[in-house]
């Protein structure tokens, strides 16, 4: 029951002075109360829990997060400690290689 899922607002209406919406969850449509996000517009994505929109889904944050995943590791590969990276890839940690001295 604690699940909250994103859905798209496809219809807006007022019922007993309460702002309601029909929200589409990938084909399943539900009535959702919008009182907690009063400025939602048609086509917005909201996060819905037990019939209430509790938050707007921020698309630009979502895209930024996904882009940050895409870039993860690239900077380290480019600018990081290449030897440490190679050691880790070879399954050797710092301790196991420490104290062995430099190869002649």
């Amino acid at each position, binding site marked *: 029951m604690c699940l909250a899922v994103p859905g798209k607002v496809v219809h807006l209406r007022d019922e007993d002075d309460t702002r309601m919406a029909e929200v589409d969850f990938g084909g399943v449509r539900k009535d959702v109360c919008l009182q907690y996000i009063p400025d939602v517009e048609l086509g917005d994505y909201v996060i819905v829990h037990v019939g209430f929109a*509790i938050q707007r889904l921020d698309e630009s944050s979502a895209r*930024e997060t996904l882009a940050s995943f895409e870039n993860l590791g690239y900077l380290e590969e480019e600018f990081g400690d290449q030897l440490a990276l190679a050691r880790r890839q070879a399954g050797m940690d710092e301790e196991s290689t420490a104290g062995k001295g430099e190869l002649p």
Partner: protein
Amino acid sequence: MKYLEEFSDPQLARRLLDQIHATVTRPWALMEVCGGQTHSIIRHGIDQLLPEGIEMIHGPGCPVCVTPLEIIDKALEIAAREDVIFCSFGDMLRVPGSKHDLFRIKSEGSDIRLVYSPLDALKIAKENPQRQVVFFGIGFETTAPANAMTVYQAERLGIENFSLLVSHVLVPPAIAAIMESPSCRVQGFLAAGHVCSVMGTREYPALAERFEVPIVVTGFEPLDILEGIRQAVVQLESGRHEVQNAYRRAVPEDGNPVAKEMLRDVFEVTDRAWRGIGSIPRSGWRLSERYRRFDAERRFAVADIHTDESSVCRSGEVLQGLIKPNECAAFGKQCTPRNPLGATMVSSEGACAAYYQYRRLDLLPAGASR
């Protein structure tokens, strides 16, 4: 649906996992607070893909599981009354009370109705003015705004035959209680994303500071969880303990100010018993004085309840992260989703149910027939 598939992308998951593997130099124990996250972790096998030594301890964030036995017994007593239509979310139906469960008394003729939203219960109250309609209002901060709005609407629309059996619980006091426990092994937290969608993140820096523990606000899709784990281990490896938000698309720092205002109006903080854990000071909400007349416990003056917890079930230890579900002798034997001994085997967010649903073959002893 928007941003469900994208946050399950296997290539990006691999990238995050590689980063976690590259970061970790020693064992760490992290707790995911929310039962929804537990299910995602077990369902996607995330715990098995992590570096050896990174342990996910499953937290108490299953509202169905921590609802105290006394409240379940009260629900059973109220629901059995002839003048009552008792409305509940589906997962409460099979939660064991001292003697039986709501499902049993429904089959014996009590008028128990499953609803998707508390507003559905209010509608039932409006359509049945001659009956008392009670909604079983449990849950964390995520669910509380829905129940608060329903009580507010009941008052506004004059629907006086509606009442709420309230047992709300709060995450931050539970984190404090876990950290204060002498048996605590948790070194970092994945905080429950949707709780923070409502409440924001400002309650957490004081906890991170006080217990010197990283807290990462985390979502529910596989990439969200991996990113939460990644940020937590990066902090641990560098000796930091801060609050980070790995679920920005759904969690603004302030949460939902409109919902928080409604919560302040309708509820007030109270001590709360957590099933399997015990009483935690100031860890719950009850109706405020202004709305107290909608409190079902008050309206029905439920008599003394003598609770009787199963002696076999170890769900309390599971909820505190002290044992994994399959370390309980009853798990998968006397205790199954069909015959649950504890709420953790019932709820879609319970750790025992997650282990049973996704790992049942692991439990059979070698050579057992499948």
